[in-house]
């Protein structure tokens, strides 16, 4: 009942979710250190090459990553129009100032959104929430109560969407669908809040009735194992990050405050 079904095919799907999370964090941190076109460009090219071997159909890739493809040029354009001004100024109109520097920054920003967003989305759409919870609790030793509670709560999100729909239809049936949009929205939100509390309480009771929170050591039905290929995935991510940083430093475009 999660909103989007995870992909279960291809080599990415067999990786441990914790490895995917780690790989994503490594690339993101490296690319956030500096804002320059070279590091992001190199990372993006390497990622696209890796993607070609990931065995995910092109149509699926495009469909799932569409938001990133839309967000990247928009973020770039915004930076071009309003970004920090330096070098030759080409256009000046109200708050808009397009300069040589802002064009460079804009390109760097767009590439960065792609280089961080594409792998993150593709790694996350192949994560099954249950497997992630297993990994977080067994490998990273996060508290089981918290992780399992969150996992069970995730299932309620789909029910909240249905509740909201029913609340909307019910307001039409009660003759108040056309009056006072803001007041109605607030009232409906409060009703959803009350219903959510109800559902949450019921779920908690059902979980306790099955021994959740019992004293003693919990066992795990599904072992979460960190295999060689998971280490390899972290290694690949490190290599991509290192290549990107090295290339940028060599090209002289690296502009991180600490670099």
């Amino acid at each position: 009942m999660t909103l989007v079904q995870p992909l279960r095919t291809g080599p990415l799907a067999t990786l441990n979710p914790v490895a995917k999370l780690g790989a994503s964090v490594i690339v993101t941190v490296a690319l956030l250190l500096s804002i320059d076109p070279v590091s992001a460009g190199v990372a993006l090219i390497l990622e696209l090459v890796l993607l070609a071997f990931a065995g995910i159909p092109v149509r699926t890739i495009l469909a799932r990553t569409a938001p990133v493809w839309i967000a990247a040029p928009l973020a770039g354009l915004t930076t071009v129009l309003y970004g920090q001004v330096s070098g030759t100024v080409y256009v000046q109109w109200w708050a808009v100032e397009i300069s040589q520097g802002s064009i460079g920054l804009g390109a760097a920003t767009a590439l960065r959104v792609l280089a961080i967003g594409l792998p993150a989305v593709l790694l996350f759409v192949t994560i099954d929430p249950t497997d992630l919870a297993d990994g977080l609790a067994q490998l990273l030793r996060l508290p089981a109560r918290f992780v399992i509670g969150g996992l069970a709560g995730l299932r309620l999100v789909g029910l909240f969407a249905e509740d909201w729909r029913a609340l909307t239809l019910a307001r039409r049936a009660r003759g108040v669908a056309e009056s006072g949009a803001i007041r109605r929205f607030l009232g409906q939100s409060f009703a959803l809040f009350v219903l959510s509390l109800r559902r949450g309480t019921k779920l908690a009771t059902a979980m306790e009735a099955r021994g959740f929170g019992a004293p003693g050591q919990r066992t795990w039905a599904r072992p979460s194992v960190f295999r060689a290929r998971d280490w390899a995935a972290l290694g690949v991510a490190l290599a991509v990050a290192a290549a990107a940083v090295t290339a940028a430093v060599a090209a002289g475009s690296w502009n991180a405050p600490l670099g």
Partner: protein
Amino acid sequence: MSTGEGAPAAVRVADWGWRYEGRSAWAVRGVDLCIEPGERVLLLGASGAGKSTLLAGLAGVLGGDDDGESAGSLTVAGRPPAQARGTAGLLLQDPDAQVILARVGDDVAFAGENLGVPRDELWMRVRRSLAEVGLDVPLDHPTAQLSGGQKQRLALAGLLAMRPGLLLLDEPTANLDPEGVLEVRDAVRAALEATGATLVVVEHRVAVWRDLVTRVVVLGADGGVLADGAPDAVLADADGELGRAGVWLPGTPVPETSVVPEGMPLLTAHSLAFGRAATTRSRRRRRARAGAATAVPVGHPVDLEVRAGSAFALTGRNGSGKSTLALTLGGLLPALGGELIAEPLLADGASSDPASWRSRELLTRIGSVFQNPEHQFIAGTVRDELAAGPRALHLPTTEVDERVDELLDRLALTDAAAANPFTLSGGQKRRLSVATALATRPRLLVLDEPTFGQDARTWQELVRMIASLRHEGHAIVAATHDAEFVRAVGAASLRVDVAEVTA
């Protein structure tokens, strides 16, 4: 692991009571009860007698001192329930509220994990429990795709995997269609035969469990135990006490409605296709991604002519689309195909397509009562709730008050007039949601599971009220599992999955 796992558990209740934090009245008090290992007990009582609270107490899920105050003592297998986790398994009413994980096998394994059962034995127990409840699906089958009856059997399997010595069932079949009721009853029977566990089941409708139980206990509305003994002796109800307490007794006569003359047509459906239309942007995007059509009709197209004074029951299994059809006939969802025509008598000057009416125009024409009453509440008090419709019609204050007082009186809600609708009991909420629709006197009333959660007494009130509405010329369409309700209001049955009318 807990000691004595799987051995049938004894229950000892001595002058026990529970009061929820922040409430002045005791939910249950003065209960004395001894249940021997392996006994099968049906627990009865009027709504509000505290049956569910007693079960929750036995299951050890009432919580601690922050959650309420207890009196007397209560033990399961010789220990306080909170310290005997896994000894008692509690099955609740709502199938959707009990699914915990996304895959069938994981969901059944959940309880074993919590109790620290080693992995190999855990999966053995999962397979055995699924076999015991007869749920024959792969271990990685998505739990979201199960029917209501299957979900209840899944939850039962989850409990059985704990090897409990005591099974507690709180109205486990109340939300199910007749086929689902039998599925769950048979699964419980098979599980008891396999484990020999002690059973305590709460259910309004006695007939389902009568042959399975060995003892019947009735809780009094004012505390204590009203009756206790062998099923035949207790259910004979020699002094009529159970009947007055609202217990459904087998063979209770069902009132039959006299023939009602039908009037002019109100609403006509020709090959009406219905389904959840794509209403929001995100929904459409999700569907497009899945590569499916924008709105998929459920069930077969429907032909129907609703006349003044007529009554139709939409029947069929859970998930067959009864509720969706009810919403469509109620002018709340657009038709996906075919025609839905409001005839002049119903339209009364508005257009012939109910889905195009303004919300206020619906009020005097079609009243819809939803499956979950809480979805429909929009005011802070019962009185304001009833007044909301008439006020939206801009009726004069005296007229509004008159209608509200009449409905409060008729549905026995006068004492609760100042209460918040969300704090009412299940039966009261249902009556209030019906009353809010009646307050604007619509010609057609569309009800979704109107008798759900009613005890025998409030059920009779509802049936009488709906029958009298028919006599006044209102038309009734009700989506329902309740065959006795269909008979009592004299409704023609429209089975939704096959879409044929049988009179």
